[in-house]
């Protein structure tokens, strides 16, 4: 909603980490309800689009869904009722609900706080927070290669298909798959070295380089960090008292 009001990705990342850990420590219904409220406020304020949120939620949601569906039948002693041979149990049901709510809230919080920030910017912030340069260098190069490698891989698979590669993997195609992957690795490796050369030729890692992005916190950044930390503290208190 107000992306231009914030400039300092570092503070936002710190706030996100602290609050996400607070979320994952909550158990009591009151605290979980408060967590949902905070998540809702974050969504309203930062405005990630709801359909987009659901689309992103699909893949990781499946893993959680499996667990959430299993727990009420497999965990706990207090049987609430039976569905066929399965007993629905209170403790399992509570655990499942807790997990589902925490998962959705952290996921949504992440989308709201950093979903709009370009990934390279996140790594600049992590670098500024003290992550070793080797890791951020590696990350920037990785980002550089992802699109490339995906395109190359899909073109190679088209070429294989045109030369009659059967769809079946188990039908002896594992060797072709491995070979295609190895060919992809070879050509990508040659390219990654050229890219790295090109970066060094343009002064990558040269002494005297200006910092890539100076982070200057605005008052709004501090206010956001304060709000996130306060929200986390409040949740922990509610969780203890309830």
């Amino acid at each position, binding site marked *: 909603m107000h992306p231009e009001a914030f400039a300092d990705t570092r503070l936002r990342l710190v706030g996100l980490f602290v609050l996400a850990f607070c979320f*994952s*420590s909550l158990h009591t219904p009151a605290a979980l309800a408060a967590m949902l409220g905070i998540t809702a406020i974050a969504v309203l304020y930062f405005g990630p689009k709801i359909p987009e949120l659901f689309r992103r939620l699909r893949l990781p949601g499946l893993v*959680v869904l499996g667990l959430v569906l299993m727990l009420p039948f497999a965990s706990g002693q207090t049987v609430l009722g039976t569905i066929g041979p399965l007993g629905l149990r209170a403790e399992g049901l509570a*655990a499942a609900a807790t997990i589902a709510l925490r998962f959705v809230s952290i996921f949504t919080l992440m989308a709201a706080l950093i979903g709009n920030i370009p990934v390279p910017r*996140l790594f600049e912030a992590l670098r500024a927070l003290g992550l070793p340069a080797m890791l951020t*260098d590696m990350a920037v190069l990785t980002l550089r*290669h992802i699109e490339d490698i995906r395109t190359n891989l899909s073109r190679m698979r088209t070429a294989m298909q045109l030369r009659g590669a059967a769809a079946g993997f188990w039908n002896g195609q594992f060797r072709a*798959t*491995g070979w295609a992957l190895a*060919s992809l690795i070879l050509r990508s490796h040659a390219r990654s070295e050229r890219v790295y050369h090109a970066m060094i030729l343009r002064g990558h890692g040269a002494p005297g380089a200006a910092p890539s992005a100076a982070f200057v916190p605005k008052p709004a950044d501090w206010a956001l960090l304060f709000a996130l930390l306060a929200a986390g503290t409040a949740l922990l208190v509610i969780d203890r008292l309830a």
Partner: protein
Amino acid sequence: MHIPDGILPVGLAISGWIATGGLVALSVKRIESRPDPRAGIPRAAMMTAVFFAASLIHIPVPPTSVHLMLSGLMGAMLGWYAIPAIAIGLFLQAVMFGHGGLTTLGVNGIILGLPALAAFALPRQANRTGSALVQSAAGFAAGAGAILFAVALFTTILLAGLPAHLDADAERVAILTLAVAHLPLALAEGLVVAAVLGFLRRVSPELAHAS
């Protein structure tokens, strides 16, 4: 085989971050003691991107399909660089696709990282013996073993971390189901990794194994 946010108790999630942080610090130290630590960065970045692209390769396992993980391959080809590479890969998967999680990134780093390191050691030993058959077997073991090791870690951590304890029967069923469900993936991954490493040994031996 990524544990999402919200499942594990916060203590376990924090321990995971500490363990992975320590492992990354150790790796960076090992890498920086080399004559030219930057030389391996392009390869590590490229393999992290391949690790990403591997999710495009679907292996049919009726009634569904799985995709390649390649953590064993990363270990074999990258050695110590595999640890920071996996950490970066997990962070990217979490922020770009919501796959895995933020609070559980540390735990997931251990689940994939330890098997990768094991896969680094294994083919390297086999390489010294020289026999092509032994090397292929080692490649298969690196690929398949990394999956099975990761499944074992995943299951252990998940069961230890559930907020409510399962009864013993359910626990046994869950472990068995997960293990059996991952057998085809382990087999597929072993075959593919053996083929990849075999290809690289023939064509570009210096790429096949990390130094």
